[in-house]
């Protein structure tokens, strides 16, 4: 029986010639990522060694990445002290893949890992963040774990007792219409599968629409695979993956795509034709509450947010700047933009996007998680409505359980910024 991409990766990483769904394996980890929650990982890591007489020892500091993003610059003395402790640990252990609060090499973990060339096709990537699924965009098997599980990986170098997941094949065909993009595809798919529709499953993406999609778009897709409950999303690596890694991520070594066998066994196949797809929107308070934008068009918006690991890349900012250039954010709304990384921030400066957005009235914030998780900046008032290109709209997600969050693409967000109400970008500007 043939194997899916994830089966092939797990077989290689656990030293077996093949694995079947349900087998229990202990895959060696190629990259283990944490953000500020490394503070808890360090605590749990040290707890493992208590009473053993063994010195706490990282299995391989070169395979550990730590990126400060959730609260940068620190919003409180507590966070600053956590960050200080982590810096100390990083220094003592010589963790080179450390991204501190910096304008040049800082940013959101799910952007920093790909753009730094840390993730290669066929790798096993774990992260103490649920959106670690993002890295499947490069053909890796990437999944989220809790802090204690990460501490165990830091000690052992492999994940313990991993059940080989079943794979759902997602065939995405057709050409995306104007003003419709990868975010609309994944919102549509999450709506179709439901919030738990892919729990303990992997979504493996295929089809001509995926082949034609940039790595940036694939990151958006895989990022939100977890919103359907999936363990991971994965796009089998191809020429675009190699192009991205060589040209944008500075990878010098040879890149070897892992592709599924022709007779790989999928649990089922889901077909999505995007040729007639309309811009999508997820309504409060679940990500799978998805409709075409037209159904809620006209609703007043208090705050527009563009950014995050989902849609804070250069192409996203280009779409927003393209719509807002020479125009103004409506006086009845406010607009926050936060690029996914310092590098993207610089590229957006050089391309003139930052100037276009600021002149239109947007506030361009530093790279990081910012308003996405509602602990830091950009809080909403009671009863307020946000329209955001982020990935979650759960009650309280942006910091205020008495507010509403809608999720959409950068095109919908930018078009709505001009009007101050939820707007279909295909209609925007028409009388």
């Amino acid at each position, binding site marked *: 029986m043939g194997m899916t991409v994830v089966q092939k990766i797990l077989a290689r990483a656990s030293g077996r010639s093949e694995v079947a769904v349900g087998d229990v394996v202990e895959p060696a980890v190629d990259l283990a990522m944490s953000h500020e929650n490394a503070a*808890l990982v360090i605590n749990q890591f040290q707890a493992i060694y208590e009473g053993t007489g063994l010195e706490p020892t990282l299995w391989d500091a070169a395979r550990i990445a730590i990126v400060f993003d959730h609260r940068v610059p620190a919003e409180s003395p507590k966070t600053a002290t956590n960050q200080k402790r982590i810096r100390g640990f990083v220094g003592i252990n010589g963790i080179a893949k450390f991204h501190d609060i910096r304008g040049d090499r800082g940013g959101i973990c799910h952007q920093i890992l790909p753009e730094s060339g840390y993730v290669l096709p066929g790798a096993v990537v774990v992260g103490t963040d649920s959106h670690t699924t993002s890295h499947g965009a490069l053909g890796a098997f990437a999944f989220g774990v809790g802090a204690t599980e990460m501490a165990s990986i830091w000690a052992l170098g492999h994940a313990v007792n991993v059940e080989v997941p079943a794979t759902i094949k997602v065939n995405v065909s057709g050409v995306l219409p104007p003003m419709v993009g990868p975010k609309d595809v994944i919102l549509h798919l999450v709506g179709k599968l439901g919030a738990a529709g892919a729990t303990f499953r992997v979504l493996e993406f295929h089809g001509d629409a995926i082949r034609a999609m940039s790595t940036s778009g694939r990151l958006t897709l895989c990022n939100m695979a977890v919103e359907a409950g999936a363990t991971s999303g994965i796009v089998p690596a191809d020429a675009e993956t190699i192009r991205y890694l060589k040209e944008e991520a500075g990878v010098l070594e040879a890149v070897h795509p892992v592709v599924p066998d022709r007779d790989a066994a999928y649990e089922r196949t889901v077909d999505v034709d995007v040729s007639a797809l309309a811009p999508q929107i997820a309504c409060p308070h679940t990500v799978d509450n998805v409709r075409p934008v037209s159904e809620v068009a006209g609703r007043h918006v208090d705050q527009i947010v563009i950014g995050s690991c989902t849609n804070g890349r250069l192409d996203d900012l280009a779409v927003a700047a393209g719509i807002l250039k020479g125009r103004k954010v409506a006086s009845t709304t406010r607009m926050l933009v936060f690029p996914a990384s310092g590098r993207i921030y610089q590229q957006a400066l050089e391309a003139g996007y930052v100037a276009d957005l600021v002149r239109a009235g947007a506030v361009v914030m530093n790279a990081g998680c910012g308003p996405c998780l509602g*602990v830091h900046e950009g809080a909403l008032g009671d009863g307020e409505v946000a329209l955001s290109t982020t990935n979650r709209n759960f009650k309280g997600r942006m910091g205020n359980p008495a507010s509403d969050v809608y999720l959409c693409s950068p095109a919908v967000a930018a078009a709505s910024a001009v009007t101050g109400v939820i707007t279909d970008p295909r209609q925007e500007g028409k009388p």
Partner: protein
Amino acid sequence: MSAASVVLVLGDDVSTDVIYPGRYMATVLPAETPQYAFADLGVFNAKLKAGAVPAGSVVVAGKNFGCGSSREQAVSALKGHELAIVAGSFARIFLQNAINLGLRLIEAPGVTAAEGDELAIGVTEVVNLTSGRRYAVRSLPAARQAIIEAGGLIPYTRKRLLGRSAAR
């Protein structure tokens, strides 16, 4: 079989933002997180903090409990009050975090209850003693049994490390 009272009833897709709001995420140590359990459900949180919810009390929920963020605080906060969660199903990372920290989870598809109901929780079945309804229990992943038996992932990994160094 152990009998326990239902102290909170929730619906489907309860996210970790509801269990442990993101604005308390700077608090990481398991000993400090229980004060923020269900922080936005003010009345219930106040009861927890007042010590008015006995250990072993049950939270009943629908499908996909613990979806969203991987924050482990959502588990340590509930574990700190020794709550047990009976739900239709659990999201993957939450389920694993719970096993890793020794929080008691019972997956009982279709389970329903009202606050104040008494549940008898067995290995294969949950019986709502108040309504008389019975629900089959789906066992937790077999692959994770060893971790449950070890009392959580910290003692389990410790054992593995000691086994390794003994083998050298």
